[in-house]
């Protein structure tokens, strides 16, 4: 009688541990696949960052900024800083201009990365 009970218990344990092992296996494989996707996504995001950085650097290249300053001289009146522009704070005439609110509705995404969630 006790022997039969022992057999039953053993069989049950084999079944349970087998189930557990397979379950773990599948979970691991799942996790690996997820890591793979995430890695790809990270790589894509990195690439996007690199592109945006390059673009930012390109847009901020000194020759372009200088051209923009010259084009917008009437509005901005930006000049090169020269030594005679240094003065004590009390000599500075702070401009009394209202800065218009920038209209930033409908922003456009500049990255072609799609949302994967």
């Amino acid at each position, binding site marked *: 009688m006790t022997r039969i009970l022992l057999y039953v218990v053993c069989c049950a344990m084999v079944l349970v541990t087998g189930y557990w092992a397979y379950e773990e296996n599948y979970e691991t494989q799942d996790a690996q696949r997820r*890591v793979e996707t995430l890695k790809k996504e990270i790589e894509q995001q990195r690439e996007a960052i*690199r*592109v945006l950085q*390059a673009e930012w*650097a390109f847009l901020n290249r*000194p020759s372009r900024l200088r051209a923009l300053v010259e084009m917008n001289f009437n509005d901005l009146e930006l000049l090169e*800083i020269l030594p005679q522009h*240094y003065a004590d704070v009390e000599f500075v005439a702070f401009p*009394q201009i209202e800065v218009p609110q920038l209209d930033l509705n409908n922003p456009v995404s500049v990255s072609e990365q799609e949302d994967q969630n």
Partner: protein
Amino acid sequence: MRTPLRPLARIIDAREKGENPDHIEAEERAKRNHVRQVRLRQRAESRLLVLGLFFLAAFGTVAVKMGGLAMTGPQDPGARQTVSAISSARAPIVDRNGAVLATNLLTSSLYAHPHEMIEPVKAAEGLARIFPTLDRDKLIADFTGTRKFIWVRKTVSPEERQAVHELGEPGLLFGTRDLRLYPNGALAAHILGGAKFGEESVHAAEILGVAGVEQRFNARLNDPDTLDTPLELSIDLTVQAAMEQVLGTGMRLMQARGAASILMDAHTGEIIAMASLPDFDPNQRPAAINLADPSESPLFNRAAQGVYELGSTFKIFAAANTLELGQGTPETMIDTRGPLKYGQFTIKDFKDYGPKLSVHDVMVHSSNIGTARMALATGAGAQQELLKKLGFFEPVPVELAEASLTQPLLPPRWSDISTMTVSYGHGIAATPLHLATAYASVTNGGFLVTPTLLKQTETTPGASVLRPETSAQLRAMLRAVVTDGTASFGEVRGYEVGGKTGSADKPNPDGGYFEDKVIATFASVFPSSDPKYVMVVTLDEPSIEILGETRRTAGWTAVPVSAELVARLMPLLGERPNIASAGNVQYTGAKPQQ
């Protein structure tokens, strides 16, 4: 020998005794059975042993594997994917403030599989329309020929890629390509150098530097371990841009063939900006051509590759020796009667400065005769030793591939005449970068400076070349050259510029020197009371009409350009003018509002 079951002898014997012979048979049978059983047991035992060993091996393997897994750290099985042999990744290069100077951009390359093409001729015509540089007839010949694989373009922009997609030809395929991009165009072109594709495959192409820091740090930039860490240069992008603009304007105004300038930190040797004009765009680096005069190529870096006789800028080293060796003070009088004859050689001054001048005034008026006499007094040995310490005997140790190949030109035999001519910068030729480094070492308190293009986080002062007092006396002389001497146009109020001019006649390749072609150089240090920066400006063959005369000397050409550079660059570096030293100050035009 097999024994029978019923051995005749024993049967007969048994029958005689009246025993049952069947017993004998049974006895014999039992004996045989016993032998067979022993044999069977032995066989079974050996089988069990083999089976046991087999199980032991199998479980042992499992145990070893489990033990191994338990002892080693966790590892991602996905990370062991095979890495492509050709990697196109390359670390970016940034300036000292993190602004991007060079980076990689993912683009496409275009290749063709003619055997997969449906309409090869139409595809060739379409490509010729999209890329005007491609030859239509050659493409048709390629696409209808027997080749299976043809590179069409190494890099394709997204717009071009879309246009190729619209051709709808399945035989035209795209690979990935990293493009080395220099977003600032020609800015700092000679420092960055340029890059080209090395080994290529469909999926990637290796990027190799061909000049400048790109070549010098090729291994570092392509090292997979440091791909995410940009290479930080000591260059300041804004200052570099302003320098190139001002220098370009100055070069045009002075009608010079070329120009070079270097702004260096006087203590750390960091090169904040270095320009050489004319320049080029490293995004489309022109092919190197073999010219008789390499300096005619825009690829030529005049600041680090151009070896020039730098003229009177060298006089400060003669004064340094005189002071350092205790042969005089700035007030010691030097015989300046001329012309100075030595054998067949005559040394003249620009004009007669009278019978004698103090060491200080020899520098201020730039007297060749006075300098030559000072150099003769200290001797060739001391002169060579100082110039060697300051780096004039070796290629300049800056991180540029081409600089390490540029050997300064020294007198073949260091005679007394060489000693005299070298003292005022003739008969010895070095790069402007050599000069900047030496001026930094001489004026910063006498500590040797190593020029570098890499941002320095901490620097240890180099070996001492001069005593700090000597260095201070030299700075006072350089300052006087600007306030009272040949470089009076170099004054920028508030920055206490000190410097020394040098105008050397250009050597004629056919022998002798040109009468009307000079290299005008101005080496300056500021603020001269506590030097922070050293700047060298060199103009190649400048000439300008001023006051009805054609002026070529540095005082009229390189010095005004240098003054403009100081005025533009110092505010960009956040250096306020020292109002106290400037005296009367002009403020901005804006009036305070009430």
